[in-house]
């Protein structure tokens, strides 16, 4: 069992195992040190960062749904500068991959972020979040417009030599078009998926529960949709994919890997069980051994070979 090789080289980022904490559910990492040693896990992705700090949305911001939750945090974050000065330094001693998730309100802000992040030693890779409102295009999401997606990726690509991962929105008719555009414009990897847009109504107050009206649906409820999109993207591109959406058990990790993910990110279930990442890291070898699998690498996309 100890022989199962969990290591993954994800677009140039060495992960000691494929279990990574997802953006927006893992703070800036340190938070989870009250529960376990961060060097156990493959890595984590920071809360989405912007140039300037952002206050985020008014409350209510969250709402439980069947096997899932809605969130409309509104990208609250401390801003790049405070992250560098207050958070990144504290992570130096931690032996785990730190991936920075970032976004801008304009294409130019994305590029400025990429330029600044490119210089940071403690950062293993960048994850572009395109599921956020584009102020210059009237607030529609970058991630649902194919041309802006291509533009953002290609300009960020020029701005950094670090591994560049693009996190795709599932709220599109054909996610493979976006996957291809990212690959064609120089992305090194994809994160599939961000949250599905949803809402809930407060029937006593006769208005949406969330102050923001809509929010992002995450958690086990979305797993089948996420798996389908990973499956589709795997057929469409050759760059590696982070599988994300509702992962709760080691068998979910294996489902995503067989569907085509090279590694996975776990989000919502960190809230339900803050020990979930180390638990997955320790359950995975046993499960893989029982399936006669010697390494994670050998089963990436296994569900496609017939």
């Amino acid at each position, binding site marked *: 069992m100890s022989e199962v090789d969990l290591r993954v080289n994800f677009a140039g980022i060495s992960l000691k195992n494929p279990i990574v904490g997802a953006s*927006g*559910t*893992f*703070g800036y990492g340190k*938070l*989870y040190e*009250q529960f376990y040693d961060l060097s156990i896990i493959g890595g984590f992705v920071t*809360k989405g960062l912007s140039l300037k700090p952002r*206050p*985020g949305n*008014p*409350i*209510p*911001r*969250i*709402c*439980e*749904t*069947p*096997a*899932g*939750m809605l*969130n409309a*945090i509104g990208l*609250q974050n401390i801003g790049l500068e405070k992250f560098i000065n207050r958070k990144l330094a504290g992570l130096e001693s931690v032996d785990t991959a730190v991936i920075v998730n970032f976004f801008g309100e304009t294409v130019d802000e994305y590029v400025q972020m990429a330029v600044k992040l490119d210089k940071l030693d403690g950062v293993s890779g960048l994850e572009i979040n395109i599921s956020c409102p584009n102020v210059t295009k009237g607030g529609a999401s970058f991630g649902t417009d194919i041309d802006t997606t291509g533009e953002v990726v290609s300009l960020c690509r020029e701005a950094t030599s670090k591994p560049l991962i693009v996190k795709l929105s599932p709220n599109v008719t054909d996610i493979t078009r976006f996957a291809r555009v990212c690959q064609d414009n120089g992305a090194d990897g994809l994160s599939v998926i961000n949250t599905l847009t949803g809402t809930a109504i407060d029937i006593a107050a006769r208005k949406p529960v969330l102050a923001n009206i809509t929010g992002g649906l995450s*958690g*086990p*409820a979305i797993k089948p949709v996420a798996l389908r999109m990973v499956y589709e993207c795997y057929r469409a591109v050759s760059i590696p994919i982070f599988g994300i959406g509702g992962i*709760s058990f080691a068998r979910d990790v294996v489902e995503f890997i067989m569907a085509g993910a090279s590694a996975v990110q776990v989000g*919502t279930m*960190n*809230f*339900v*069980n*803050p020990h979930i990442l180390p638990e997955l890291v320790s359950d995975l070898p046993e499960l893989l051994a029982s399936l006669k699998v010697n390494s994670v690498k050998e089963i990436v996309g296994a569900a496609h070979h017939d």
Partner: protein
Amino acid sequence: MNCKVLENRTIARGFNHLSLAPDKPLGPIIPGQFVMIRVRESMDPLLRRPMSVAGFKPDGSSFGLVIQRIGRGTEILASLAAGDRVDVIGPFGAGFPEPPGAAGELWIVAGGSGVAPFVGMLQPATRPVCRTRVFLGARNSGFLLCADHLSDGADVFLTATEDGSAGVKGVVTDLVERELANGYAPAMIFACGPAPMMRALEKSVSGRDVRLCVSLENRMACGFGACLGCVTKLKTEQRYVAVCRKGPVFDASTIQI
């Protein structure tokens, strides 16, 4: 943290008191801290429920919860039987600040399940050194939760019921107003209860030299600072802070109640 249910008692219509024994003793608990309980091992309901710690053995071998049944999660928790097991994490949050020294007076104002943090605070082992005046409010005498417990720990114990079936007739904040008008001057007020109660208190103390600390019950997904779902707005800056980490107890002067 795996806990065994030692006892589940109905303490009023819609309210249960649960005693839980953790497998490993809890560390020190500050009154006002809370735990996050997994309703059951299922994806529905998915999220843990936040519950204030309502009293605890000083050695950490057991602690209590006062649960008001208001929805699906609390109904399931209130149906646990002795011997059942529940998954709990915590304690989380900063809890109430240090009470006043021996010279000051502490007022405690509680309504509904808001009694919970004060059960622990007024235990013999943790009772403040200062004089304490406890104000407990409820619909009627049947809903004065944990009254014996609180009155044992208090120097002065006052109750208000809406129908006058026990103590003064009216709401608990009327009683606070009366005592203030009578010239009693607390150094601090600790409050936990429904939002209207807290807002009334804020008004009562405005202009007086008393520190009001309120415990908030915002919706929480994680309880430990990771989701940023539970935030409250600062009064001073245009900024949100996580209630689960910076609170749930706040100086009323710093936040929008």
